[in-house]
């Protein structure tokens, strides 16, 4: 690990000024991903700025009904919040499906969406990787691709975003409150992450020195009937092969509204608007659920690979969406 200075500023504004003033500086939240990357040599900052103690650890209900989640709220506290469990079950379930009890206690609301891909080549500094070292090449292409993207990838990068929480936040139209050197701004959660294109080294639209201070969850009645379903190689403590965040409103056997997002399939938590369009006005049926998945997956580009590739994700995601919707509709009928 390269030597670095550590500072713990007095408040978020000072933290932002400190990081903005040093191009090699990084924020340290819960540390569950960054500390590992320091050990692996994936990053080598000269200055680490601790922010975990500076950020709100409260979930506050605003007059508008919005839940404002402080960036310092741990993943486990957020998953257990009674308001989240009742109004946004998909978010609580997504959080609980990720990592382990210890890691959820450490991981923060602000840090979780900024965790980096678990692409093995990204984490292995002995292999070329355009995300870690721009221009060095992509080792995943023609390599092991089982865990990689089927949507929105580029020639430069086929990595997927690993967060479960982010998939739920995307489906829920959350908003990210950001403090930067030029002041505050709000970014729609669905616009926080970016596709790799020719600059896969940039995961999000945040600039250097910008700090997430809170995530807002606007009131969303449809979210009371919502769920997160995650498919992985073992039952717990593993990243998603595919996942589905879904919320539906059903009246007289017809889906009147839907919110759908996919995880494990793209460089971003993937909002499935085409699937939502198919579902709106559809009768409740497996055939329609599959049609919704197929509409979203029309542009899917599975990868060949030494391990047989990732084409399995297409039927797997189709079945996972159908199963999620079937359970949600049945639950509502009880």
């Amino acid at each position, binding site marked *: *690990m390269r*030597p*670095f*200075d*550590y500072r*713990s500023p007095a408040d978020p504004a000072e933290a932002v000024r400190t990081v903005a003033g040093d191009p090699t500086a990084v924020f*340290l939240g819960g*540390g*569950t991903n960054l*500390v*590992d990357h*320091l*050990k*692996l040599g994936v990053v080598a900052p000269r200055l*680490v700025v*601790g922010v*975990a103690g500076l950020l709100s650890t409260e979930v506050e209900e605003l007059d508008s009904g919005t839940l404002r989640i402080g960036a310092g709220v741990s993943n*486990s506290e957020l*998953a*257990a919040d009674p308001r989240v*469990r*009742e109004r946004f*079950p998909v978010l*609580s*379930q997504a959080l*609980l*499906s990720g*990592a*382990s*009890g*210890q*890691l959820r*206690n*450490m991981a923060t609301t602000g840090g979780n969406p900024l965790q980096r891909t678990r692409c093995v080549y990204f984490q292995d500094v002995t292999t070329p990787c355009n995300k870690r070292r721009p221009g060095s090449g992509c080792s995943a292409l023609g390599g092991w691709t089982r865990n990689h993207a089927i949507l929105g990838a580029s020639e430069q990068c086929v990595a997927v975003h690993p967060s479960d929480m982010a998939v739920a936040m995307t489906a829920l139209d959350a908003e990210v409150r950001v403090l930067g050197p030029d002041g505050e701004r709000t970014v729609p959660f669905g616009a926080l992450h970016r596709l790799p294109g020719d600059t896969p080294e940039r995961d999000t639209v945040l600039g250097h020195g910008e700090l997430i201070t809170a995530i807002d969850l606007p009131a969303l009645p449809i979210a009371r009937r919502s769920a997160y379903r995650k498919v992985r190689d073992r*039952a*717990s*403590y593993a990243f998603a092969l595919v996942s589905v965040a879904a919320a539906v409103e059903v009246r007289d056997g017809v889906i009147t509204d839907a919110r759908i997002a996919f995880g494990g399939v793209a460089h971003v938590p993937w909002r499935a608007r085409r699937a939502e369009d198919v579902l709106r006005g559809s009768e409740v049926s497996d055939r329609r659920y599959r049609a919704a998945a197929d509409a979203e997956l029309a542009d899917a580009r599975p990868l060949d690979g030494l391990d047989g590739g990732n084409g399995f994700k297409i039927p797997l995601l189709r079945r996972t969406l159908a199963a999620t919707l079937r359970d949600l509709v049945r*639950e509502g009928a009880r």
Partner: protein
Amino acid sequence: MHTEITVRVDGAPRRLTVDTRTTLLDALRERLGVTSPKKGCDHGQCGACTVLSGGKRVLSCLTLAVTQDGARVTTAEGLAAEDTAPDERGPVDGDGRSPDDTDRHLHPVQRAFIDRDAFQCGYCTPGQVVSAVGMLREFARGWPSAVTEGGREPRLDHAEIAERMSGNLCRCAAYVNIVPAIQQAAAEAGTEVAG
């Protein structure tokens, strides 16, 4: 790039100067001689390094020691004494440990691990025990897990324990006895345990 920190470890304040790169795990083991937290994977995947910080279970291998200035850290060695008031504790020697440490009574979770033969080689056991203590506190607060039925109060059955303890791996695969050990400790503490 050195920083002075003070960490309360198993009840005793310990002051030390650390390289900023030092993890809490390395500070405990290499600097303070507290070797109950184990280095398994050193990447947050095995849980052998689990300690309580501020009463919550965390991974000491992914925690920089500099972030723990002023924190209260409890390892497997300090579990039994954690609920004891400071003035009830025995004398503390230069290493910050009581001379009678080995004779001190065990925490109920530690006793249950012995009763139920819940380990083989024992390397993961301190992490398992600390994790179980933290987990039972989380359960007592009503925190749900991924296997808790929607909206219901969780019940401490096999599936709940396995899910909540999934961050602690055991190469000997002693899981079959770890779950009953945790159930025993929970039942002794008055928690309703389901089969």
